[in-house]
């Protein structure tokens, strides 16, 4: 195409559209979406019905909010590591902290990086 007339003064400054995937997902192959059910994490801004962006490639370090498998079920909690103890801490006073024991069937499933919450 040959365009006549003056070139647009913005031509040199054109950016691509902002892409939320690019902003929120660093490792696409390892990133999954998970729906929240329950209220034990409301003080961390995680509400029932929200969608969590979960990156499995990240290490479940101390204080991260993670998806864990406990007794065959996916659950969302904040992980705390005290010396040799591993705890899953809720963010709502009405719920109990879970201390992970040897007998428990526990696995870290992924690290929550963002919450998608409708307002």
């Amino acid at each position, binding site marked *: 195409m040959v365009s006549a007339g003056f070139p647009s003064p913005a031509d040199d400054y054109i950016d691509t559209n902002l892409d939320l995937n690019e902003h929120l997902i660093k490792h696409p192959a*390892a990133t999954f*979406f998970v*729906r*929240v*059910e329950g209220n034990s994490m409301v003080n961390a801004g*995680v509400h029932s019905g929200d969608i969590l962006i979960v990156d499995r490639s990240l290490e479940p370090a101390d204080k991260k909010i993670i998806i864990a498998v406990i007794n*065959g079920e*996916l659950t*969302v909690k904040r992980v705390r590591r005290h010396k040799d103890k591993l705890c899953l801490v809720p963010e709502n006073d009405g719920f109990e902290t879970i201390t992970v024991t040897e007998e428990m069937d526990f*696995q870290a499933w992924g690290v929550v990086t963002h919450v998608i919450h409708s307002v």
Partner: protein
Amino acid sequence: MENLFALIDCNNFYVSCERVFNPQYQGKAVVVLSNNDGCIIARSNEAKALGIAMGTPFFKCKDIINRYRVEVLSSNYALYGDMSRRVMNTLQQFTPSLEVYSIDEAFLSLTGAHDTSFSDYARTIKMTVRQWTGIPVSVGIGPTKVLAKIANKLAKRVETYGGIFDLTACKDIDVLLESLTVHELWGIGRQYASLLSRHGILTARQLKYADDGWIRKHLTVTGLRILWELRGISCIPLEEAPPPKKGIGSSRSFGRPVEALDELSEAVSSYISRAAEKLRAQCSLASVLHVYLGTNRFRQMPQYSNGITLTLSVPTSFTPHLIRYAKEGLKKIYKKGFQYQKAGVFLSGIVPQDQVQLGLFTRDRLTAGYKRALMDSIDGINRKWGKGTLQCASAGVKQTWGMRQEMKSKNFTTRWDELPVARAG
């Protein structure tokens, strides 16, 4: 430089996919059924240990399944396809030289990799795929693709190897080859295997030292390549980009026997729609269309099957045209009074979209642009809103002949309304 290949194979892939999102299946006997819930096509190790064989019809092992409370699932190809893509993308960060060999296998070229130990490298690959995708894999390493495939088999077979086996670190390969029958070799089909057995070549080791001329004569150059690969001479290269498909098929077994021509036409129209969509996705047109149908060979009932091949005057990917031809073809081969179990279509004579000679006496020249635009919008809408959102009316609205998938898990990774749920309780 010495060639080096790794074959990465996902363990019990379909079952493993299901376990990522349904962790309660971990450690339990789980099987996945084929389309239509017909046969066992994937088994967890626990199910294998119960003696449930690959390919067994579901109804034949219902007893074991009930007795041991085996979890039974219909196949969920949307999930397996998405998880496969994730596994392959994860592997791609290790090397761009990757051949996706099947939904659950990939060859990696390690040529030029200067890791101190290939086993360590394989361990890193295995752990990364497991962490990123949740899928357990086995890794086999060898100087040729055939040997990498063998190494992978050994990695799976011998528990103490921990899912990794490096054939290049092995001092006496012949001892290992002695333990494998020719049936188990990649690229040796059942017919070749029995031909070899008849001539006293039973093990991989015997094949390795067979006479080149004899093998070439009886197993063609394909067999000769396998023999050389067994000797460690790499002659099957990595195929990084598969060539465009030479033919596109779509067929299914019906959920129940179908007798009426109307219903068969619906089914065939819907297969055409799917095949045509694939055709357009690779920017090709088809010039030959094959339609077939058949009754269930395994039942005691009147049998009939037939097929017809139609050559199209102008190559096309326009669904309504293809459907019209397919229905005409179907009418010619259809016979009343049979209980049909299966129908299918196959598009071939594939040519690139932009290399087509238009028919002299067609008006296609004028309307080709409109048709392409129409199909593009339909494909776009179906991609966005899910398969079959927009379809030709002749494909039927209810599709009562459709597949049985009574125990299918959710589309955890491809549908917003079917995401896995995490309890915050």
